């Protein structure tokens, strides 16, 4: 049975259209991560599921029950807030038991639930303390513990790790994934951090401008983005995008020209663009190679800057008239990611090559035209 069903949800704030026809079905036990740029509506969507925001139209079901007009406390959800939202005047114990207390559960049951949550989250020592006596990571765990004690049908997380430092964030990420595996509950998680999305999600929901762009397993989304937005949003460093013109189109094959004379052939297109139309070619930084004139496609470039990250090397290369758009560096240079340490002095002339099969083709509306690529199954 579906755990959460969102049907045609719309949300207006005065004149602002925050959520546009959102429909999504979440299965029992799934870990759904909603990502998108700030203002894309991901937090609003989470709050409508929680019941903290009302919907303008549409329907929400949890475990088959219509909860559209129910109070948050009656929806069978629990939520972990970005600010943790721990009640400062209550001890850890009281914070975690508050929901059950409001539901007028017997004291023994509350104590048992709190003890269990405390044990799962290793908070036994902190039960009598107040939130202000705890570290950031402990507060985070209390917030999660508060959710666990309610044994909800669905856990909702609103950017729960964004207030933690980098090391703690990684630790909590692992802890949350472990918790999900242990509890097997449905979880819906909002973040702007794509590493969290890629590592934790069973499925990722990419939102943009109040609309769902794409839903799918992390690697599916990474390998086969349905449009230019998703292609650009997932993956760091970002995909290189180059403007191109269709020089010839034939059946489901097409040849496009980037810049002055870089020709790329695309086969098995999902949809064939008209000859002469404007398109965008995309290629991920890790799919570009340096010094391989034999590759199917190559172009000359000059090294601008090299970043040595140890495990990998990022080269920013200027290809003259062949310039990219919307790159991380804010300039028209290409980003090339190499899997080991290779020295490239600035101003070195290089040849950049790639396989045509690694490139993506998007039409002028951003829709992906290139053939679906095989996804490595885990």
């Amino acid at each position, binding site marked *: 049975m579906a755990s959460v069903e969102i049907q045609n949800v719309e949300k207006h704030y005065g004149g602002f259209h925050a959520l546009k026809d959102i429909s999504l079905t979440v299965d029992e036990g799934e870990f759904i991560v909603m990502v998108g740029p700030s203002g894309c509506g991901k937090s609003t969507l989470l*709050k409508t599921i*929680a*019941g*903290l925001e009302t919907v303008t139209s549409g329907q929400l079901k949890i475990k088959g029950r219509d909860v559209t007009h129910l*109070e*948050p*406390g*009656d929806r069978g*959800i*629990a*939520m972990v*807030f*970005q*600010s*943790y*939202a*721990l*009640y*400062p*005047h209550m001890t850890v114990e009281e914070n975690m038991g*508050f*929901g059950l207390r*409001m*539901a007028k559960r017997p004291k023994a049951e509350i104590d048992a639930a709190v003890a269990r949550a405390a044990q799962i989250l290793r908070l036994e020592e902190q039960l009598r303390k107040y939130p202000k006596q705890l570290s950031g990571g402990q507060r985070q765990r209390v917030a999660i513990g*508060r959710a666990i004690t*309610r044994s909800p049908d669905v856990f909702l997380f609103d950017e729960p790790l964004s207030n933690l430092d980098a090391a703690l964030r990684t630790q909590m990420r692992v802890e949350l994934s472990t918790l999900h595996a242990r509890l097997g509950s449905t979880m819906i998680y909002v973040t702007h951090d794509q590493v969290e999305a890629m590592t934790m999600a069973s499925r990722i929901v990419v939102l943009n401008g109040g609309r769902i762009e794409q839903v799918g397993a992390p690697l599916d989304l990474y390998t086969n983005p349905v449009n230019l937005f998703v292609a650009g949003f997932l993956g760091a460093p970002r995909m290189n995008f180059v403007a191109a013109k269709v020089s010839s189109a034939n059946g489901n094959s097409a040849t496009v020209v980037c810049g002055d004379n870089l020709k790329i052939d695309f086969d098995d297109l999902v949809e064939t663009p008209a000859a002469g139309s404007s398109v965008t070619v995309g290629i991920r930084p890790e799919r570009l190679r340096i010094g391989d004139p034999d590759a199917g496609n190559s172009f000359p470039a000059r090294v601008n800057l090299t970043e040595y990250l140890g495990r990998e090397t990022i080269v920013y290369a200027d290809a003259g008239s062949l310039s990219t758009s919307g790159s991380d560096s804010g300039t028209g240079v290409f980003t090339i990611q190499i899997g080991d340490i290779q020295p490239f002095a600035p101003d070195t002339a290089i040849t950049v090559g790639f396989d045509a099969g690694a490139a993506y083709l998007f039409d002028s509306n951003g829709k992906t035209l290139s053939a679906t690529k095989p996804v490595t199954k885990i």
Partner: protein
Amino acid sequence: MMRLWRRHRHWLAPTLFILPGALLFGIVIILASVQTIWVSFFDWDGVGPMQWVGLANYEQLAEDPQFYVSLKNNVIWLGMFMLAPPLGLALALLLNQAIAGMKFLKSMFFVPLVLASVTVGVVFTWVYDPTFGLLSLIYGWFGATAPALLSDEHLVSFAVVIAALWPQVAFCLVLFLAGLNNLNEDLIGAGRVDGARGSAMLLHVVLPQLREVSFIALAVTVIGALRSFDMVAVMTSGGPFGSSTVLAYQMYEQSIFSYRFGYGAAIATVLFAIMAAFIAWYLRTLLRPEQETA
């Protein structure tokens, strides 16, 4: 000279800055207050020589029935003023809605706060007038005759306090509205997710966040109740037959009308002693949070 100034200006300049304010406040307010305590040990008509009488003024006060009337009335003021914070909170809860026009309505609710106490006194003398006041009109609807509140020695203090509550409630309203504005949205959200609503939400989630504001409202109300003077002076002049005096008014009356400055000073000192406890309590709480962070 210039060099001397440059070398010492890091402490000379601040000293010069603080001096005018500190001297003026120190002499006119602090020193004067201490002097009053000194005066309370003398017999003095305000003009002639002062004569040391030791604790005689206080002994006399202890036997003065009027003193106990004042004290009793101060307790009535204090007790009834305790209604101001809850009433202010209730009004704030009523007004804390973001609807077009609400802003203007809120401001209108604040109006009693900026009125002079003389104005409030005059307005309420009107309300209580047994022949043409608002109260007589209301009693008239029920075919009853309004009591002359301000000439009834048992009711007069209550009537004056009700008038004084009007601006005091408005003051608490302002404080609580500000407090409600600063509520942590996420905490309210967490409370809703936890199933707290209505009074449970108010009690467990909202009020704990209003603790600081409630404290201020309470403290300012207590101090306001004990300081009450204007309303008594304007509405009843302590009457009828001295039944509505408070310590502050009795002190004024004894000094200005009866030229018993030593006795007045003793009353002021007693009032100060009562208030000092509250002021100290307020100051301690007010200054404490900084010590924690310092």
